[in-house]
């Protein structure tokens, strides 16, 4: 065998090995991507309608899920959270609306905060508010750079599904003779002053909020985010939906082909989580549209496919090279 033929074979094997190694690394790398903050959530563009009432709809197979690691909030009082370790985020976009789907594990479905000790499950998405010169802190923003937050709440979902829980429903054995002025808001100050928590007619289980630092969180004047949350077999799936085109003061703006940042938070009611006591992520990139054509295959998967394909190509080249050389040697 000619010296160059042997080294050619060696080189082919080496190439093979390298490709396999690279593919393996990339697979691992794909996982590591999710645990660092260099994750990108892409809102894939879809043509089929996205149902507004079903977070399990098949169209979500066209989204590219990313796993976002969460950790306990340890920055300011009150601290806590940490029970939800990760949330899987998906996003879709069509001509009119943008959709987010959050999915996380939670052993209990906590829908009520009616009693003195109860708390509800909740989840939220956070974006830098428009017009900010500086990227806000993912921790509730700051004075000169606000954040928009959309929070879905288990009790608001129950209000929509079953109506605003009355005391009689919460405490079926309680007896009350009479409530004077029963329907007069004066005697329900939270209701009378327009606190969103006290309102009995709910349109959406999702509240739009703005914050510019700790303690400044305020319900937005314009509420435009719809959604639905469903708990099944120890997992929540919560859908958030908003129109792409909104007025100047109606909250964060999204444009097809554009990008921004997004952060996530999850509260576990049965562990007493509320306010700052929650599991949070940092800001991640959010890309809207375009990459959609990938049809549901994630970037990581693409890298893997390309790696395998090039591996196959290399193998073919090597095999044909060996064949040609072999034939050439046998000939007189």
């Amino acid at each position, binding site marked *: 065998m000619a010296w160059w033929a042997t080294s050619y074979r060696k080189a082919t094997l080496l190439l093979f090995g390298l490709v396999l190694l690279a593919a393996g690394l990339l697979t691992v790398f794909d996982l590591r991507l999710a645990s660092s903050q260099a994750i990108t959530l892409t809102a894939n563009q879809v043509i089929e309608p996205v149902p507004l009432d079903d977070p399990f709809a098949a169209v979500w197979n066209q989204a590219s899920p990313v796993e976002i690691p969460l950790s306990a909030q340890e920055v*300011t*009082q*009150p*601290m*806590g959270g940490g029970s939800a370790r990760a949330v899987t985020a998906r996003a879709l976009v069509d001509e009119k609306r943008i959709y987010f789907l959050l999915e996380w594990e939670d052993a209990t479905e906590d829908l009520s*905060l*009616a*009693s*003195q*000790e109860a*708390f509800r499950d909740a989840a939220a998405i956070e974006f830098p508010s428009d017009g900010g010169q500086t990227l806000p802190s993912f921790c509730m923003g700051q004075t000169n750079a606000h954040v928009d937050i959309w929070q879905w709440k288990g*009790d608001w979902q129950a209000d929509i599904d079953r109506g605003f*829980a*009355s*005391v009689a429903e*919460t405490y079926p054995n*309680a007896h*009350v003779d009479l*409530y*004077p*002025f*029963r329907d007069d808001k004066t*005697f*329900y*100050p*939270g*209701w*009378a*002053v*327009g*606190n969103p*928590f*006290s309102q009995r007619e709910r349109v959406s289980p999702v509240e739009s909020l703005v914050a510019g630092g*700790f*303690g400044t*969180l305020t319900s937005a004047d314009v509420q435009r985010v719809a959604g639905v949350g469903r708990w099944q077999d120890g997992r929540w799936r919560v859908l958030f939906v908003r129109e792409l085109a909104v007025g100047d003061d109606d909250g964060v703006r999204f444009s097809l082909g554009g990008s921004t940042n997004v952060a996530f938070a999850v509260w576990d009611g049965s562990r*007493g989580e*509320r*306010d*700052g*006591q929650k599991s949070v992520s940092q800001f991640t990139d959010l890309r809207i549209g375009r990459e959609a054509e990938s049809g549901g295959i994630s970037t990581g998967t693409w890298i893997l496919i390309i790696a395998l394909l090039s591996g196959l190509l290399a193998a073919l080249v090597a095999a044909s090279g060996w064949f040609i050389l072999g034939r050439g040697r046998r000939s007189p």
Partner: protein
Amino acid sequence: MPKVPNWQLGREMDYPYERGKPQRQFAAVFNINRCIGCQTCTMACKSAWTFSEGQEFMWWNNVESKPYGGYPQFWDVKLLALLDEANPDGQVWDTSAKDAQNAPYGRYDGLTIFEAAKKAGARQQALGYLPSDKEWRAPNIYEDTSVSWSQGSSLPEHSTWFFYLQRICNHCSYPACLAACPRKAIYKRAEDGIVLIDQKRCRGYKKCVEQCPYKKPMFRSATRVSEKCIACYPRVEGKDALVDNEPMVTRCISACVGKIRLQGWIDDEKSPVYYLVRKEKVALPLYPQFGTEPNVYYIPPRWVPRPYLEQMFGPGVEDAIDRYSNPSEELLGVLQLFGSTQRLIFSYEITDEAAIGFDEKGREIVRVPIEEPVIVRPPQHLNIT
């Protein structure tokens, strides 16, 4: 964390905010010795403020039987246990370090609920807990239950005893409820130091319910926000035409049948409340060691064993009972002003014959004789059937 002065503890302490001194501070003195446990105050408050859905369990004013009772159940025992857990056997006073203005009871060398939370590495501002529904169920559980039973009792300490503790929000100078709220939805009014929960900003976190050591904020499920005693601020502001829009005492204070309550300002030397607390030192704060500088003061019951009273009202107990049992002319006079008028007494004068109360502008609003005249019923009106 900023350091703030706490005269009740005779030292500075940690508090999440700087001292914000109101123009004047709402305060009241409750004379435990006179209370008959009728709950008229409790009903006065309920019928004014908490008769609607979601408030069924709410008693912004309640009267509980000590030592066993509590609303919510065992609230004080639980708090004391938490403090002791954070700082075992450390809740002690140095009574030699007295100073009339800044340390009238000596110096507290233990930890407050704010300091204990810090020491325990708690992930919240103050030590606390969230009472369960069950613990809120009765405003006077163990009503009239006394310790032991014996044949007869005599002063100075009865061997069989219980007493009534009348409780409203203390409108603390360093409210733990306010410190606990991460939204700053609780505020202390600059004009009178009354502590209120902003019904619009509250998001129902129940942080105030958890961290008020006196357990006076309560969560209302019908509006999903917390509510608490408002010190009847519309009355204190003088919004009631019934008394010519002049400042009026709260519902629970004016309704008291036993005339055990007197309202005033803790930081105005002319106020009878200032006299009772700061000058005569006959009225004491409830659990001053918690560190919130509460503004409802109590004349301790004179028949109760002193160690029990001291863990509840601090080391000023012995002196307070002594002065109450051997009252000066002025004290006797001021005691007549309790429950004497619906109007708020800003200043007073004690003469040989009468105790006189004045309004803010110095106009006389009430005159009570020091000694009631003896009137003998003439024979034709004898009450014999």
